[in-house]
C-alpha cells in the first residue's frame, strides 16, 4: 500500500496486538534481566486494549481520533514507564497527522517525529542513554530523509526498520541511565535495551504491514 488509511490503522493495531501477544514471554524475560519483568505484560495488555478500543470507534473516527483513542487507552491500561511513553507517542502522533485522510511517507515521517519528540519530552532521556529513544531517533531521521527523497511508503519504512535494527544493536554497548535498569549499572552493558526492542518491533511490524498489503 502507498498510504495508510483509517481502516488500515485499525488493522495495524491488530497486527501490533498479535505481535506483542507473541513476544510477551520474550519481553518479560528481557525486562527481567535488569528490570522488573513487567514489560511483556504491559505491552501485550495495552496493545490488546488499544486494538479493541479502535474497533469500538471504527474507521469513521478518522486517523487522528483513532490514534488519540489508542494513546488514551494505553495510558489507562498500562501506566508503566513504557506504557506511558508509548501512549504519549501515539497522542503526539495523533496531533501531527490531524486532519489527514491517509498517511504517505511524509505523514508517516511526521508521525514518528512527533512520537519521538513526545517520548523525549516526557521521558527526559537523551540519545545514548540506552532507552526507547535510541531507536525512535534513527527511525524519525531515516523517515525524514526518505520522505525528502520522495521514496514510496513501503521503501521508506523498510529503511526505517533497518535503521532501528542497527540502533537496537547499538544499545547493547550503552550504559543504562534511566528506569529500573539504571540501578544495575555495568551489568546492563552487553544487553540490548528492552524499551528499544519494543520501538524496533513497532516499526518493523509497521513496515511488514505496509509491504504485505
Amino acid at each position, binding site marked *: 500500500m502507498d498510504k495508510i488509511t483509517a481502516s488500515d490503522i485499525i488493522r495495524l493495531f491488530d497486527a501490533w496486538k498479535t505481535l506483542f501477544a507473541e513476544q510477551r514471554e520474550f519481553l518479560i524475560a528481557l525486562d527481567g534481566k535488569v528490570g522488573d519483568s*513487567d514489560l511483556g505484560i504491559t505491552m501485550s495488555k495495552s496493545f490488546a486494549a488499544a486494538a479493541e478500543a479502535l474497533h469500538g470507534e471504527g474507521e469513521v473516527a478518522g486517523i487522528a481520533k483513532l490514534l488519540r483513542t489508542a494513546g488514551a487507552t494505553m495510558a489507562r491500561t498500562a501506566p508503566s*514507564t513504557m506504557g*506511558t511513553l508509548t501512549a504519549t507517542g501515539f497522542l503526539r502522533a495523533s496531533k501531527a497527522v490531524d486532519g489527514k485522510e491517509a498517511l504517505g511517507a511524509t505523514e508517516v515521517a511526521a508521525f514518528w517525529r512527533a512520537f519521538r519528540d513526545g517520548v523525549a519530552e*516526557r521521558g527526559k532521556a537523551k540519545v545514548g542513554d540506552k532507552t526507547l529513544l535510541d531507536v525512535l531517533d534513527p527511525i524519525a531521521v531515516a523517515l525524514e530523509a526518505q520522505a525528502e527523497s520522495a521514496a514510496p511508503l513501503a521503501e521508506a519504512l523498510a529503511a526505517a526498520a533497518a535503521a532501528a535494527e542497527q540502533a537496537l544493536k547499538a544499545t547493547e554497548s550503552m550504559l543504562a541511565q534511566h528506569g529500573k535498569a539504571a540501578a544495575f549499572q555495568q*551489568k546492563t552493558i552487553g544487553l540490548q535495551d528492552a524499551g528499544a526492542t519494543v520501538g524496533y518491533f513497532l516499526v518493523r511490524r509497521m513496515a511488514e504491514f505496509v509491504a504485505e498489503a
Partner: protein
Amino acid sequence: MKKFLNDPVDFADEMLEGIYKAHPAVTYVADDKRCLVTSKLKAGKVGIATGGGSGHLPLFLGYVGDGMLDGAAVGGVFQSPSAEQMYQVTKHIDQGAGVLYIFGNYSGDIINFDMAAELADLDGIQVKQVIGNDDVASSVVGEEHKRRGVAGIFFVYKAAGAAAAEGLSLDEVTRLADKARLRTRTMGVALSSCVVPEIGHATFSIGEDEMEIGMGIHGEPGIIRKKLAPADQVIDEMMERIFAEQDYRNGDDVAVLVNGLGGTPMEELYILFRRVSQLLEARGVTAKHVWVGEFATSMEMAGASVSILHLDEELDRLVAAPANTPFFKHVAG
C-alpha cells in the same frame, strides 16, 4: 506462593474494597477505586497527593488523612497508577490553593505524575512536585537525583502534611517538603524476597544465610550481599553510611524511623533501634522523634530500613504535629 488472595488479578482492587469498608475516612472519586481521597477536604488548604504501586502498605494511600495527605492514586502491585488517575485525584482535592505531588523517584511514577500535572495545568490547577530520593544505597553522593525513594518519604509527608494543615501556601508547603526531603536519608537491608501475586514466584532469590544491604523495595540490587551479621553489626554498617551523608553534630536533633519491610517481626525492629539509639547517643545526637514499625513495606519481604531526618526548628515543629490517618496516628505532646 502462600498468600491470602482470590484471583491474583483482583489483588489491588479487593484490598482497596477492604480499605474502604474499614476506613470511612477515605473514599474514591471518578468512579475508580484506584483514585483514593480523604472524605473530608478542608476548604482553602493546599492539597497533597501521592501515588505509586500497591504492595507497600501503609505506603502510599495509608497516609491520606488529617495532618498528612489528601489523596493517593493507587497502582497495581509495584506498578505506577495512571496519569489519568493522578489527574482525577488532583482535580478532586484542589481547593483553589494548589496541589503538591509527593512521590518516589521511579521513572514510571515520574512520567505519569508529569503527565497528570500537565492535565491539571490545563484546568488551571497549580501543581508542584517533590520527589522522594532518600535511599543512600541507590546512588553515590553527587548523584542524589538518581536515588530511589523509600521509607524516608514518610518524613516528607509528615512535614508537608503538617505545613498544609497549618494553612501555609503552596510555595511554603513545597519549600518545607523539599527541606524534609533534602535532610532525610535511608539505608535498608533485605533478608528475603517477596512474591508479586500475578507473577506467583519470588522476585529474586537470596541464600538462607545471606542479607543484601541497600536492596530496593522492589528487589533492586543493593550495595553488597553477604552473610547475615549480628543485628548490631548490620546497624553499624548502615548507620556509617548515613552518618557520612550529612554533618550530624553534637547537640543536633533527629527523627528516626525504623521500618520493617513486612516479614520481619517488630521485636527485631526494636533490637535494631536499640543499636541506632546507642550510635546516636555516642555522637551526642538526640533521637527526638522515634517511630518503629511498618511504614513502607514490600509485602512479605523480610528486612528493615533506617531513616534519619536531620531536624531543624521548623521541621521539628512539623514532625511533632498531630496526625490521624487510617494507618498512622500521632497524638501531639
